[in-house]
């Protein structure tokens, strides 16, 4: 469970997450792919922000769900957080590997809605 005093930023390409978190937390909405979200998170981690949630949360694989929500610390530290770098770099590599081996398919809208719901529900589980 999340430490209640922890301040955070939500990075997401999931409109449901944006809507849910918008008035509670700072939300950076990425109009792009799951990989774009991971890259944005990576760049912020490189600048000293700390990763709070695992980018590969859930058993829905990164080449299945097009949506991703990640939480990072509100304030950057002076020094890059090593653990965060290792986790994000590893996650990006795994995601790239899976996407390369089997690219996304065209999902019907109701399935996309399910992906959005699952993504939001998983990230909500930390609160």
């Amino acid at each position, binding site marked *: 469970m999340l430490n209640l005093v922890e301040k955070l930023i939500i990075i997401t390409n999931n409109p449901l997450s944006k809507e849910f978190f918008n008035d509670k937390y700072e939300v950076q909405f990425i109009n792009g792919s799951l990989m774009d979200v991971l890259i944005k998170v*990576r*760049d912020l981690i*490189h*600048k000293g922000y700390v990763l709070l949630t695992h980018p590969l949360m859930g058993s829905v694989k990164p080449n299945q769900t097009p949506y991703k929500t990640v939480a990072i610390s509100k304030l950057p530290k002076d020094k890059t957080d090593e653990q965060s770098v290792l986790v994000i*770099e590893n996650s990006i*590599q795994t995601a790239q590997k899976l996407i390369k081996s089997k690219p996304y398919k065209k999902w019907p809208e109701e399935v996309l809605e399910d992906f959005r719901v699952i993504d939001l529900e998983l990230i909500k589980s930390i609160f």
Partner: protein
Amino acid sequence: MMKVVHYINQFFGQIGGEEKADITPQLHEGVVGPGMALKNAFKGEADIVATIICGDSYFAEHQEEATKTILDMIKKYNPDVFVAGPAFNAGRYGTACGAVCKAVKEALNIPVVTGMYIENPGVDLYKKDAYIVLTKNSAVGMREAVPKMAKLALKLAKGEPMGSPQEEGYIPRGIRKNYIADERGSKRAVDMLVKKVNGEKFETEFEMPSFDRVAPNPPVKDITKAKIALVTSGGIVPKGNPDRIESSSASKFGKYDIDGVYDLTEATYETAHGGYDPTYANADADRVLPVDVLRDLEKEGKIGSLHRYYYATVGNGTAVASAKKFGAAIAKELIADGVDAVILTST
């Protein structure tokens, strides 16, 4: 009788040593050098119809051309299997054996076998593409390697099913194949645990990556006389990326002349690396490759000199195979140029 074409380098082809390493591919009918032992090991089931000899340097420096020539030479024999080496621990020879095997497999769809020592850089580069028989680190291991290679070659030529790396003596290619085990997973786990806790030998079903270490070299004695070279995996290249180094998992490295360069500026250098936000490196590449500071230190006499060339590639922690190849190639040039020590920067 089945037909085999054999590939060897200038040394094993009895043409000469390093001074002959630049010879172009040559075709010889029949057996040359270690081919004799190989032929004997086939015990009459196969014959070496031709031997191709190529200089290691020539191959390394003209890989595309050399490969094309070699493929043309092989084609007309239409062999049942292609054998290269064994290359033992010779890095360029191993890399050439691997590259030729890969090309033969892909272009001609002929099965391929080679042999190398585990630390040969050719292993990591080509183990997925060819069956590489594990050999000793020098030609002393020839007698042991040849029968294994011959056995594997015959098996492949006949199209027989391939056994596991342990059974056949080849280096695991990292291809995972499912099978139905005799015992269920939980029972296998308990068996493994009992062995492990009792200090008995056990075999893991999945090899986690492990990392070999190299002992540190002795320090630089007098840094004020030393020639220092800069190498980076941070992708710093002259503006425009003249060698077109890829933004991730680069397939090559660049070598750049910094004679007379005292500062890397926004107008002259940039990063080709796609693994981080390039804004800061593009604005001032000294933030990744500290040329400006080293020039100051050179002037102040704090170091002997800064090497005239720096080397750059795009690395990400795990693309071990190509990084290994680059490292070996760069080190060879640096030593030849009389460099005493290296500063390697990563992002």
